[in-house]
């Protein structure tokens, strides 16, 4: 019967198509795996930040990191309009400074670098930082200077779009960078490190100087 043969052929053909589709059909083209760059070629941003010397503006003029040679320097990047994160971090830092023995405290300096130099002048920072502790100095600079120092230390910040009244927040890293008495970046304490953790980091640096 020709009809039956025809039907069988049709079924066979359709089944073949179905199987072919099931095996070979890919709804999306295969991903070009070969185009992913090998790990070695990733941008240098993943390299540890180098830290190092900088010059910024304090209320009495230029302040260099090297002005504090011989001291452990704790650097924090923030801004004075910051409602919570910066006051919290500065309070923790201030508490650590207060808990140090006086002879230790003499060999420690806190630096608050504004990531909002548009609003935070050096004069404004001089009103702001001593409220937390007299041994924290506030530094400002041009946007380019601040950006360079932040990059040196691996700190990130991002100004948000101002609202209708021109108010804006700045997203920013909230690490405290620890610089040894030779001016070398030795590490970063994460956000919300306790006074005890800050003190431990300071004493480690002071001890390494003493043992030399």
């Amino acid at each position, binding site marked *: 019967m020709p009809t039956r043969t025809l039907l069988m052929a049709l079924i066979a053909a359709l089944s073949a198509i179905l199987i072919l589709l099931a095996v070979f059909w890919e709804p999306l083209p295969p991903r070009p795996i070969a185009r992913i760059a090998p790990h070695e070629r990733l941008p240098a941003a993943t390299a540890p930040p180098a830290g190092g010397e900088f010059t910024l503006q304090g209320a009495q003029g230029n302040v260099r990191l090297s002005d504090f040679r011989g001291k452990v320097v704790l650097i924090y990047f923030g801004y*004075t*309009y*910051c*409602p*919570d*994160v910066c*006051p*919290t971090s*500065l*309070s*923790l830092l*201030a*508490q650590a400074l*207060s808990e140090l023995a006086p002879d230790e405290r003499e060999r420690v300096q806190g630096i608050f670098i504004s990531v909002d130099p548009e609003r935070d002048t050096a004069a*404004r920072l001089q*009103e*702001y*930082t*001593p*409220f*937390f502790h007299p041994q924290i100095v506030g530094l400002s600079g041009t946007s380019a200077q601040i950006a360079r120092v932040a990059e040196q230390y691996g700190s*990130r910040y*991002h100004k948000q779009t101002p609202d209708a009244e021109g*108010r804006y*927040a700045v*997203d*920013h*890293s*909230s*690490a405290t960078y620890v610089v040894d008495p030779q001016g070398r970046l030795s590490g970063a304490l*994460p*956000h*919300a490190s306790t*006074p005890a953790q800050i003190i431990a980091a300071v004493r480690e640096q002071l001890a390494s100087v003493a043992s030399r």
Partner: protein
Amino acid sequence: MIGTACHGRPDPTNTCPPEKFKAMQLRNSAITLAAALALALPLSILAGEADLTVVAPYVRMVPPGTPNSAAFMTIANNGTSDRRLVKADSPVARAVELHSHTNEQGLMRMRQVSAIEVKAKSRTELKSGGYHVMLIDLQQSLMEGDTVPLTLTFDDGSIRKVDAPVRKPQAVLEAEQASAHGRH
């Protein structure tokens, strides 16, 4: 009742015709109803308030001339339904917003939120690094010993008014450390 000589009963002298008396009765029942509603409404709000308690509110003292600060507290919800804090007001700031923080690989991002949830039989902490009531453009310097009136509005319309003391950040830290030691 205003401007009428009708004093309660139909009067044969016709100063109070029966139709006027009827209208007055209707008006009286309407007043009764309104009064009942007026009494019941605050009662229902009070019922909501009883379920919501604001514990240990405070405003962080900031350096002089600093335009912004934040209020922190714990909100406890003893009720059986979830509540949301939808608004906060204070006369000390030009604007008051609800905010949250997220820590994205060390980058602290602060964002305005439309509400802060307080689940049924639960409590939500507004604390440093998390939720806070942001006080924007402070109208006056806040000194230690001052109190800041805060009005908190919840999604069911209930309102809590609290007076949050201004506290130095280091005093808050020390208190937290002391209570942490106490728990050990």
